[in-house]
Structures are given as C-alpha cells and as structure tokens.
C-alpha cells in the first residue's frame, strides 16, 4: 500500500486525518479522560469513517462527519464500559475530565482549577458549547449547525455560559 499509488479518495481521507486527528483525539480525550482510550477511539473514528466510504457513500463535510462518528464511538465506549451515557458523568468523572495539566506555573494552575470548578457546574450543553467555541475554535454558525440550533440561540448560550462563569468566580461586570 505504502508504495502504491493512492486514489483521490484515499488521499483526501488521509488529508482529513492530518487536519482533524488532533481535534478528534482531543474530543475523545476530554470525554474519556484517558489518553490511551482516546487514542483507540480516535483510530476507531477514522476506520469507521473509512467504512462509510467503502460502503459507497460520500463524506461532504469531513469535520462534521468525523465529529459525529467520534461522538458515536465515545457513546459506544461508555455503553460497553458501563451502562451510562456520555452526558451522565459522575462528579468523579467530571473531576478527572478536566484535570488537565496546563503550562503557566502555580498561579495559573490555581486559577485554572478555579475556572474548572465553575466550568463543571455549567449544564452539559453549555460546557459542550464552550469547549467547541473556545477550545476547538468552532464558529458560532458551525456549532449551531452541529447542534441543530439557531446561531442566535448558540450566541445567547455562550454569553450565558460566560455570565455564569463570571458569577461563579465572583467577577463583576465592571471588573471584567
């Protein structure tokens, strides 16, 4: 295979892998809190997606498609692991989920912990949107399309999330 000439579809798919592998991996990592599991799920995401092409179908929007398949893989993982769903993380899970080391020293780490404490108090849909918007860098329109919501609604939810984080952190509008 390595030496053989790739078809246009294969090249396109591998290019999509190069572009979105980190995004998919990150998504899986945030949802499973395990690098090893995230690696497996990312791989499964791409193999399942390839099977979609093998079955004779097309992928119009790789980003959205891969994201959907990754979500399905994550749900399957939790269904096999235990009878709970993606959105039903326990407190312990949430704690693990956001226990992500960041650079920036002790002060930033403390601040991070505080933000994450408030972050996990948000409703799951708000957390999801904030991750998509500010971690994955999705545009509001993209999030709206993904969630089948209106862009205005998503904007409102983002503002509401930030407002709630502010309130939780004791930050007034004046200081913000």
């Amino acid at each position, binding site marked *: 295979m390595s030496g053989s000439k790739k078809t246009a579809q294969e090249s396109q798919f591998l290019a999509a892998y190069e572009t979105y592998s980190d995004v998919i991996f990150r998504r899986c990592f945030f949802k499973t809190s395990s690098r090893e599991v995230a690696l497996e799920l990312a791989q499964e995401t791409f193999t399942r997606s390839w099977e979609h092409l093998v079955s004779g179908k097309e992928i119009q929007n790789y980003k959205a498609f891969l994201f959907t398949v990754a979500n*399905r893989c994550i749900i399957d993982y939790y269904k096999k692991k235990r009878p709970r769903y993606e959105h039903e993380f326990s407190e312990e899970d949430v704690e693990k989920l956001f226990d992500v080391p960041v650079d920036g020293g002790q002060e930033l780490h403390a601040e991070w912990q505080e933000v994450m404490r408030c972050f996990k108090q948000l409703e799951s849909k708000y957390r999801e949107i904030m991750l998509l918007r500010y971690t994955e860098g999705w545009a509001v329109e993209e999030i709206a399309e993904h969630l089948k919501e209106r862009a205005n609604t998503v904007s409102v939810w983002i503002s509401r999330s930030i407002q709630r984080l*502010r309130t939780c952190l004791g930050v007034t509008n004046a200081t913000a």
Partner: protein
Amino acid sequence: MRKDILKLLAELRKVALTESERVLLHDRLERYIAMRPVRSDGINRLPIREEAMGSNDDFSSFDPVPRPRRGNRCWEHGDPAIGGLASSYFTPNYLISLFKDKRMVTLTLALILALGGSGTVAAAEGALPGDTLYPVKVSIVEPLRGLANVSTEAEAEWEIRLAERRLDEAITLAARGRLDAETRASLENSITNHEQSAGTYIASLDASGEAQAAADLQFDLDSTLAARHNVLSTISLALETGEPTMARTVDAGASAKGFGEAKQTAQEESHTLITLTATAPASVDLGADAEVGARAMTATDSKVQSTTTLEKATEMGVKAKTKLEAATKLYNSHAVDLSARFKLEVEEHLVAARDALAAGNAKLKAGVFAEAITKFQDSIRESETAEVLIDAALDVAADLGIDLDFGVDAPVRVEVKTGTETTNPTPATNTAPKSEPAKYPATTTSSGTMNTSLTGKVSGGGVSGNTGSPTNASASVNTSTNTSVESSTRHC
C-alpha cells in the same frame, strides 16, 4: 477575567497527539485502507478472500481497535463456531457482487435450490449455533435477506434485528444447557459487531441530516439492549440457581400424566389476585396533557420550545402508554404461568413503567418536553423488558416441554379493571401449540447458563416470534382514563 477564562479554555488546545502517536495512527490507517479499498464500482469483494488466501500484508499488529464494520463480522472471519473458513466467502458484499454478475445469478439460485430450496431456508431460520444448518442461516439466508435493505435506515434496523436474533440464540442455548464458552464468545462477538454496525448506520443517518430517524433507531437499539440485558440476567440467574421460569417444573422424563398433574396444580395455585398498580400513577390523558403543555410552552418560552418537540413528546407518550398496555395485557394473560420469581421481576418492570409514564405526564403538563420524552422512553424500556421477560419465560418453558395449553376444558379468564370500566371476559380459544414431551431437564447446570460478561455486552436477542401474544385471554384496557389497572386471574 473574561479573557482569562477564554484563554484558559484555549489552553486545552494543547492536548494533542504526540508525533509518534500521529505517525502510528497514520500508518495503521494506511494499512486499513489497503485492506478495505474503495472499489470504483462500489463493490468491495476481494479483501476477505485475499486475507483468507494469505495476504502478504501482515495485520497481526493491527489490533484491536480498528474494527471494520463488515470485515469483523463472524461470517467474514470464518468463525469456527458458525461455519469455519468457508463462511468467509459469503460476505454480504460478496453476495451482492454475485448478483451484480448476471452469470452468477443462476449458479447462486441453483446453489440455494441444491440446498433444498425454501424448506431448507425455513429450517435454517430456526437453527442454533452447532446445528448443521446454522452456517446456512448466518452466511446465506441472513445476508440474502439483508440485500433487501436499500436504505441506511433499513440497514440499521436489520442490524438491530440480527443482534436480537443472536441473543435469542444465546437465551435458547442457555436454557438447553448448550451455551459453552466458545459459542458464547462467538455470539458475543457477533452481537457486538451488529451493534456497532447499527451504530455506524445510525451515525451515518445522523450525519446526513436525518436526525429524527437516527434518534428513533438509537432508541430502538437502546431499549433492545436494556430489555434483553435484563432478561438474560434473569434467565441466567434462574438457571444457575435451578429456579423454574414458569409456575410448573417438569422432569425430563415426565409422562403425559405428569404434565396433566402439573397443569392441574398450576391451575389450583393460580387463584391469585394480582394488583400491579396499587400505587399506580395519575391518569394518562395525553390529549389533555398536550394541550396543557402547549399552553405552558406558549406562556413561558415559546421561542425556544418548538411545536416539533411537543409533537415528539406527545407521540412518545402515546407510544409509552400503548406499550405499557400491551405489556400489562400480556402479563395478565400469562401471569398464571410464571414462577413467583419471574412474576415479581415482571411486576417490578411494569410498576417502573407506570411510574415513568406518570412522571412523563407530569413533565409534559409542565411543558418540560425533553424530560417528558426521557421519562416516556424509560417507560417504554421497562415495558419492553417486561414483555421480553414474559416471552423468554414462555419460550424456555416451550423448550423444556411444558404444556401451556389450558385449552377449552380450562380456559383462563382475565379481568382487567380500568377505573370505571371493566370489560367482561370471554372464554378463550386456545391457539398455543401442543408441546412435545420434555427433551431437556428443567434445571440446567451452571455450564449451561449465560455468563454475566455476555449479558453486560450483548444487546439484541430476546425471544422473537414466540407465543408472546395474549391469545388466550380477552382483556381490554380503557385507553382514555386508565387510572388503575387491577387484574385478577382465575379459572372458570
């Protein structure tokens, strides 16, 4: 601070694949693509055959994550339990390719006819792992039936049904004490594959904008999973402890007279008043609830809540109510046949279904449609579990040779009180087939029971197509204002 918050969230972007991980995944993906190439004619006919013949491409290290949707199916890998290497040629895609090649159509049909035509096919449908015709069932009959699926939705439904079939086989084998570790692992693998395939199709549907169909199928898959999981657990436990699933147990060598005596005893013991819904929830009046919900929606947040959600919740509520009524009716018809343990299990699920239905109604009235849908789905799941449990118990009883026929001489009379209205029962006409003498002992050894590792994984199965319908009881439920369903069973 806002900037800090957003900056901190952006820090999460630093989570990424390492270079070695990226290369590793890329390499695996390339090899996977080589194994499963996209053919220009859309037919993927060669990979498995190449693999079977010994491809030079060593895939031993390609493990275990990349599970090809079709490539990992048991019949494609020549699972010894269901047909060995020969079955690996009968992949669905390969069969499709046969039909695309017109020269092969005649040969394929001739092959089917050579196997005995429709009679063989019909016989194969009832085959179990280890039976001679089982490879025909899973490698030919089912893939051929699968060819009829022309849409992604149909494919997903078919995969769910296949998962159910495999679990059905597991339950039957467990009841007969024939579920050894190898067969169990094979079935478990097959069920997992079908579940994954269904999941892939559902994801595909979702991605193509058919979110509603995807959600419905996902719910179907989930409820199937939950219901069958519970049934397997109960059956396994009952068999492990040697408890009967039915009210009567029959020794393997019991004579016809023995059956008669067992039936008589069961009839005498069945004068039990079953009150499932002493704590029954409030009435189920979805029409009125929908109106209340609609008003609440309009008054509170009409911009956010759509009428689609209201319709969905109402539709789900009606489904939940219908399902519960069907399960209750089935239970009333067969309560007398069930052992105390199974009766208790079923009652628990029915009560849970009623509670969930009531909770769903409350949410609907309050205009919280999403939560109402969840509650209604819970209710459907519980009702489904109760139904499958009853079906499984009846099926196991049939396998054990228990005569469920109360016949004309002793019809079961069931009364279902529905609040202010009671339907007078009529003598039932028996449609249950006469059972054969017991072939298998009523109690099985632990080796013949379903392991919990299987129950934790498997999804489909259940007992389809058995005597689950309440044919020997004429009961009806007031579907408009059913506040309490009190059932009593007794014999005329």
